[in-house]
């Protein structure tokens, strides 16, 4: 009589692209939590300000943007105080930027671990996306505090959060999907062809300028606006501002397009990443 054997693992060459080890991911949820914690601790250990760094950098960036783009170049900010305008835009952009940059190094950065032990390879990028969410949370609280101070000092300002602010988690989820998809795709491509190592930082630099972070979408002439809107990050950043500051440049059609593009990027990115992660230790 056979004893009950709940687990049977078959190891063979697979050919499919879209195979997700859901059970494995659930089984390793503790590892995801511990990796988030590791990221957090190792980032801020032996720093004086600690997690306050997550607050300081966006504030300083917003101040510099406010000076350069608001004062020097005279960019309009949809009638919102510049500091709030930039902070609101950076909230979404920073999350996207940091998550994509970090996950685009998943395979090469984790080679030492991946070549010695198996766990579902999506564990590490998911942990990265989550740990960046923590610092975005801190930034959101900062945003709220600064908002309160500015509104308190000048009651005439009309910028108000809308009910859409309740959808912020969905917006973050949207950015996470897009950043993970893009990051994993880059990570897989870089593991195979080193040429692409140069691409991620360069690409993100350019993307910042074609995304309405430092200017409102309304500043783009009407006939070119579609160009900015096919960039899937743009509608999300606009949505962030619409939710937090009640600006009115949110366009549902562009947003729907962005959702579709993001979903496609996520599927392709995760698929290609998983395909490569299966034997990438062989050529690294």
């Amino acid at each position: 009589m056979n004893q009950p054997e709940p687990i049977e693992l078959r190891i063979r060459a697979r050919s499919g692209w879209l195979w997700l080890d859901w059970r494995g991911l659930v089984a390793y949820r503790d590892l995801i939590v511990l990796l988030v914690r590791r990221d957090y601790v190792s980032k801020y250990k032996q720093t004086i300000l600690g997690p306050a760094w997550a607050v300081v950098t966006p504030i300083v960036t917003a101040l510099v943007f406010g000076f350069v783009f608001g004062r020097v170049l005279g960019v309009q900010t949809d009638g919102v105080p510049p500091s709030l305008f930039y902070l609101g835009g950076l909230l979404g952009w920073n999350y996207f930027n940091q998550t994509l940059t970090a996950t685009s190094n998943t395979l090469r950065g984790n080679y030492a671990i991946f070549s010695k032990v198996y766990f579902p390879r999506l564990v590490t990028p998911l942990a990265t996306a989550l740990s960046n969410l923590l610092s975005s949370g801190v930034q959101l609280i900062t945003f709220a505090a600064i908002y309160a101070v500015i509104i308190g000092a000048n009651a005439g300002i009309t910028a108000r959060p809308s009910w859409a602010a309740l959808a912020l988690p969905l917006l973050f989820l949207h950015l996470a999907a897009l950043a993970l998809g893009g990051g994993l795709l880059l990570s897989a491509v870089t593991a195979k062809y080193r040429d692409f190592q140069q691409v991620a930082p360069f690409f993100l630099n350019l993307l910042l300028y074609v995304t309405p972070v430092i200017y409102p979408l309304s500043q783009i002439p009407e006939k070119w606006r579609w160009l900015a809107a096919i960039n899937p990050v743009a509608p999300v950043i606009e949505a962030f501002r619409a939710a937090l500051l009640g600006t009115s440049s949110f366009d549902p059609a562009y947003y729907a397009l962005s959702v579709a593009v993001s979903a496609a990027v996520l599927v392709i990115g995760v698929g290609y990443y998983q395909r490569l992660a299966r034997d990438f230790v062989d050529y690294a």
Partner: protein
Amino acid sequence: MSRPIIEVSGLSKRYALGEIGFSSFREETQRWINRWRGRESESDKAAATEREFWALRDVSFSINPGEVIGIIGRNGAGKSTLLKILSRITEPTSGEAVLRGRVASLLEVGTGFHPELSGRENIFLNGAILGMKRPEIAAKFDEIVAFAEIEKFIDTPVKRYSSGMYVKLAFAVAAHLEPEILIIDEVLAVGDAQFQRKCIGRMQTIANSEGRTVLFVSHAMTTIRRLCQRCIVLEGGRLRGVYPSEEAIEHYNRDVGATELDVETDALPRAWGSTGEEARLIRIQAGDGRGLFFGEPLTLTFTVRVRSLIDAGMIGIAFNTVEGSRVMTLDSDANGETLRLAPGLHTVTLSLPSLPLSPGRYYCHAAIGQGQHMCDVIDNFALWEIHAGGRNDWESDRAFGGCRLRASVTHQVVAL
């Protein structure tokens, strides 16, 4: 009899040699375009097969629950590839392996340790990486800490640990895994001698505990002999067979071919950063070329080229077992007399009336030195076979252990 816990059938792994992996994007695109236009040339294909290398070819075996199995073979026999596939680090090219049970593999100790985290945090992180759940780790936590002997430093970041402490902690976590199948690559030899004994003891406990199946790769035949009942012998990527350990070790030893007794050592690589500038061993001969026999006289002749005067020199040779323990050293200065070697060519001879090493194969190392300074050190210059003796040998056939010396015997009757 239950079903085998591990069933491997026709497992193969092909690697492409050369720069295939990190090919540049341009080359790959070119290849795609060619293929798409249906113009993949014959020479491209031929070149591709030429650069292929089968690290594992058509390997099949099955293992029953509770067995402790060694995997042995020379370097490049495919041991690591087999472990990597069974640990799911890489995929096979063809074939299949079925594992019926929870698997944990230890190809390294301390995978994923983070220097900034404390010992406590690293225990949890490393445990989770190895596949343990949080409550499991928590339940074993005290045991792990006690095993690693680091109670006092448990909340110190591991970057402040000595390398010994680090390794002990890492092994302790690994040793407390409780999967049904445990895959281990020579990670045993960690820490000081005392801790190593503790590690091996722990491995024996793991191996003997009920229902645990262990796959164990090692070059250390002593450990293999002690832990494993059967061994998988691999050779050049193919399965040579699965034998009882003693028989497997014999096969292995036969694979590691022995060298001649007259060795030109001038061109061999040097160890320990010794240069062989002042004095250099250029030839080492043993006996008269007839072979080395237990219990018979041994004569070793060293030819040395000396460039600058060696005032108080010594020449030595050491014999290591295949498992790596040093069982005999002969030094020219053991009787208190040093050698004075002027620039030029010399031969130095060391002799023993009776060779005491048990029949078997020994890796030999030789050195010339002056005081603490080593002028020339050659590790593993030969693998010499010592045969069971001729006329005088009535004892080697029952020899266990590395050396067998003849003690003088006195016998007194105390009472009858």
